[in-house]
């Protein structure tokens, strides 16, 4: 990604007690390698304040923001961003997501009681892909809203029915059908997971390397941060996976050979249709005003959202005035950030957000 100098975002993870850097990730220009002295002083001021009972949380300069966050008095995360649209809200949520992604992959126990720093460093490599997916500019909104992105499929009821039956057959209550990191349908129990877990699982599946099936241990950051569960995923068509969260049984082999074929073979067409609808997030049959370029609709009760910047079915490419997709995404995200940080600071109220683009010049 080509960026002009000075634009970028870098993330540093350190142990709180000793200040040993565990890893650092970045996107964009600065901090591809932040100098060690800078990392040291960034962590130093935070520790200095901490010792005096003053907790430093954020600092901003004309073009840069730095946010510190400490988790369980054991892990410190520092993010430094010089991107125009990175707000305190976004950076705070980013750090929150990153930490819980670490929990998801390596478990809370290992992060809180660090015995061997070198080993932890090695273990944490496993979550680089997930963390990097938060850092790359994404087509999803879950990292910002902390609500999972959803796709409204054509044949929702059929898919739901099939998923319920499949999950039940796999001796589990937690099942989910995902298309490119967005939830198409999920079992009732799946929605009972914490909103952040649902989001993280979706991002995790999207970030993993392409495989026809996986058996991946996950620690649910809010549900069971210390005891791992098994996340079984099976690729139905490229881009569409069905996931089951289960205990020690059944084996991956058994589910893959016996159940996947049986349940999902008849539904090849609706599953493929999910891919088609995935970019727009909802079927073309929904009427929508011509002026709406993109929208973000959040169900705050169930913590899920629909997010698209390609709201119009047949986009008239000839019109030069229309904004590019990236611009729309940036605008919509910025608008969300603005609204949430200025007007909905507490997690209450049920205002619908959306239709942003039409209001802007």
């Amino acid at each position, binding site marked *: 990604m080509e960026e002009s100098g000075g634009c970028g975002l870098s993330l540093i993870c350190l142990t709180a007690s000793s200040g040993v850097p565990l890893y650092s990730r970045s996107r964009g220009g600065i901090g591809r390698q932040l100098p060690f002295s800078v990392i040291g002083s960034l962590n*130093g001021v935070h520790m*200095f304040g901490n010792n005096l009972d*003053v907790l430093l*949380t954020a*600092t901003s*300069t004309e073009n840069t923001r730095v946010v510190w966050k400490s988790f369980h008095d054991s892990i410190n995360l520092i993010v430094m961003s010089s991107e125009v649209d990175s707000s305190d809200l976004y950076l705070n949520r980013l750090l929150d997501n990153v930490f819980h992604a670490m929990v998801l992959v390596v478990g809370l126990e290992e992060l809180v009681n660090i015995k061997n720093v070198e080993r932890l460093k090695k273990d944490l490599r496993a979550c680089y892909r997930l963390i990097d997916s938060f850092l790359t500019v994404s087509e999803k909104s879950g990292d910002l809203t902390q609500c999972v992105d959803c796709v409204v499929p054509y044949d929702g009821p059929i898919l739901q029915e099939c998923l319920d039956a499949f999950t039940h057959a796999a001796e589990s209550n937690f099942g989910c059908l995902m298309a490119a990191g967005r939830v198409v349908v999920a079992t009732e129990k799946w929605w009972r997971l914490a909103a952040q877990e649902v989001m993280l699982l979706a991002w995790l599946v999207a970030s993993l390397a392409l495989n026809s099936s996986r058996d991946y241990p996950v620690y649910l950051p809010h549900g069971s941060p210390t005891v791992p569960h098994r996340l079984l995923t099976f690729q139905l068509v490229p881009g569409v996976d069905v996931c089951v969260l289960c205990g020690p049984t059944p084996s991956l082999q058994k589910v893959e050979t016996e159940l996947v074929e049986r349940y999902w073979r008849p539904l090849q067409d609706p599953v493929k249709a999910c891919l088609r609808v995935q970019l727009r997030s909802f079927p073309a049959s929904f009427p929508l005003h011509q002026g709406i370029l993109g929208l973000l609709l959040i169900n705050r009760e169930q913590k899920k959202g629909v997010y698209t910047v390609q709201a119009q079915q047949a986009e008239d490419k000839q019109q030069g005035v229309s904004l590019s997709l990236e611009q729309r995404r940036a605008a919509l995200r910025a608008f969300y950030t603005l609204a949430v940080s200025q*007007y909905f600071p507490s997690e209450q109220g049920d205002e619908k957000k959306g239709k942003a683009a039409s*209001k802007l010049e």
Partner: protein
Amino acid sequence: MSLRGVETLQVRGLQPEEPPDSGSSYSSSESDDLEPEWIDSVQKNGELFYLELSEGEEETLLSFNSSLPSINHVRFCENEAEVIEESQQKRDKKVEPRLKIINKILKKKVLTQKHSIKKGSGRRAEQISGPTSILKHESSLKSGVVVQRYRDVCLYVNPDRLPDSAGQQLCLLQALVGIVHQTSLNSRRVEKQSSDGGPVSWNSEEKLVVHGLVPGSTAIKSGQIMIGDALVAVNDVEVNSENIERVLSCVPGPMQLKLTFETSFLEPDGGSQFKYKQAPPSMNNLIKLLWGEDNSDLQLAIQGIPHIAMFLTLKLDSEISKEEQEILYQYPVSEESQKLKSVRGIFLTLSDMLQNLTGGRIISSSLILNGQLCHVAYWKEAEKLFLISLPAESVPLLQLKNMVADVVQTLKVMYGSLVSAFCRVENLHRLDHFFSLFFLRALQPARLNEYADLSAQQYDLSSRLFLDHTPGVRWLTLPNDIKIDIDTALSDLEAADFAELSEDYYGIRRLYMMLGSCLFYKGYLVCSHLPKEDVIDIARYCRHYCLLPLAAVQRIGQLVIWREVFLLHHCQPCMEGTTEGYREPDARYFLLIVGLKHFMLCVLLEAGGCTSKAIGNPGPDCIYVDQVKATLLGLEGIDLNIEERLGAAASPYLSCADWFLPSSRDKLDSLTTSPILSKFQMSNKGATSPASKKTLFSDSSSSLRTRKPSPTRNSGGSENSIEGPVDGFGLSPHSTPDLARKYYRRESQGSGGSDGSGGSGNIFKISRKKHTLPNPFNFGTMKKNLSEKETEELYNTVKLTSGPGNTLFHYITLETIHGIFISPTHRDVAQLSGSIHPQLIKNFHRCCLSIRSIFQEAMSKKTKKIPNIKSHSETRKTSSSLGLIKEHGVLFECFPENWTDQKKSPPTMTYWVVGRLFLHPQPQEFYVCFHDSVTEVAVELAFKLSFGIAT
């Protein structure tokens, strides 16, 4: 034995931090009996801050004071007695410059005291005052047994109202104060008392023991004077039976007397702690603050709140390493600020490191302190770092950033630069005063301004959040004729044609040139002949010292402020490319503010340039002060007209939010018959009559009413009108070439489809600009005749919103180009008292603050982007988020706060707050709050407001 000075409130000096210049100014005051009262308050550096309330105000203020007793606890211990002495000495310094009349009469004594101060060596020895002398004597006693209690009682006395019949034989103590003291009878008792309690120095005179109180006198009314108390001092002048009559005869007129009584009683040893409360807690804290009196009770209120202002240096002298040498200035030095002070290393490191890394200056930080979120806003300049920290719950970060910029700006205007403000020792006390005011304003704004009207106060508090830090001054639109009168008066003053100021008269160069002036009435700017930057700087200064609200609430008896100012606008080196042309003269600038009643006239003077150079630190020149005062006196009649304008119905119309609650629907239905609306209709009817002056507004308002209800078509119409905004206005013959040019430009931009070409430009206000025409009117004709009142009423009844009913709740329009903003007056808002309306107004201002910050951010991004636009246009495009935000609207829903009915859900009302930014033809910001029921186009509202009313 010496006198400690008599405090008179009639003649009250300011700037307590600094003892008055006891040398030259004092001796000059002796020689000249005619000179103004404020002359003694002038400080060494020429600055003057003199404030005196009008008589009526003072009486109420003082009588309030006197109702609260102040008690001085004094414990007799050797070491502690010294503490008391010091604090009293401090008080002495404050007191001294204030006396004048009594001073002169008791000149000799006071003079000896003054000299002793100047000498400084025998200070303590000669500073014997009543109480201290007692202490000295008592110090031999065993500590903690006998406690002498001193009590100050403030009484308001009026020698003019003395009963004449009583004549000479009635002594003044009895007649004036109402205390009966029988001289000879009780001499033995007194002797006894003084032998164990009083100073030895009272040998021949006896102590003034209260033997009785005169019925109906002020003394008995106060209820604080007990029989058996002994009067030891009057206004800190020690009294006894011998000199009391003389002292009381010096009371020049109605004033407050502070009587100090002594009572002895025993106190248990344990709990006796040294307490010293100086001033009684008074209602009017602002006045006390400005007078620089002790404000410990106010400080107490903000004590638990962490707050600090620091000025740090990044460059340390490595040679001399000293504790805390990086702190150049700090306020306050309290426990709460200690923690913030201790983490200054964070601030220094961050500001240095982040700047090196990213090249951007540090702006703000957030900290959690004792579980409380605090924000820190920085101002970095060269190697110096200025920062202010306040808790987030009292001051949001957005506002804090503005505040810091504001403080820095004010300090720069006052002292030239931050370094010169903070790094001079003599400024320390002034800065302490400055920041104590600042923090009180930020943390306890309600305690500073007491509006008589509760809703006006609420309005003031909620609007202060947003408006105090916008680059603008509250402007009051006035009818044309009043404006012209004021303009003329100010122009006459600025012309400086009076004999004493003319160069020919004395044959020497005049001292100052008047650059311009601006006039405030009750905190509203009514007229300005200064460039925008100067007005804003002056307003900033006035706002900081709470002068604007002061003038709004109280009648000022006399206010004279004089100080050198460093106006950035003038001091900045000229823009590049103008080296050939005009250059600002290398001059010094002085600000003179004179206040009288509700008026405040600020005059900017230039020394150097075409006038003689200022040498040293010149104090205010009497002639200039007198001239400004004369101008104000000349304007006196006009305040009635302004009051009338303030009292008139709001223009444009405002609705109260409560009318729109569903439960009060019936009220809404009857809105047509409500007095305000019917007034509106009436005036509208009147508007149709083709009076020449009325044409313009009748056009706009009637077309407003008859306009098609469809909002989309409305918006179309507004677009047109924005294109050619001035087409409807004929150019006034009074307009200056400058003005004409301005409108020409606008006109050339416009499309030309004018519809109200017949409108005469008379209503269109042009007088904000200096007008150069000689005016035939003089002060005598400033009274307005009746026929014009009608026009004014019409002028005042403009409805801003579309649709059949009026849905406008509130508005602010900020004209950056003129440095002013217009919003409903306090009285307008006070008229609309409702249960949810204050809530709405508060929310409106909070929302405006965030909208404005969005605008600012968007604008700064835009300007930053310009240089890069060619090389990085592609990447820039993708990384820019919202681009330039021009309009921002938020929909709110509100309901009555204390809804008691459990069964029904509270009624709700939804309203919009919309902000709109205009960059062309001139930067303007416009904020409006209206009911949800009507679709409004902000552009249209802004147009109507700014071209219909504001101008």
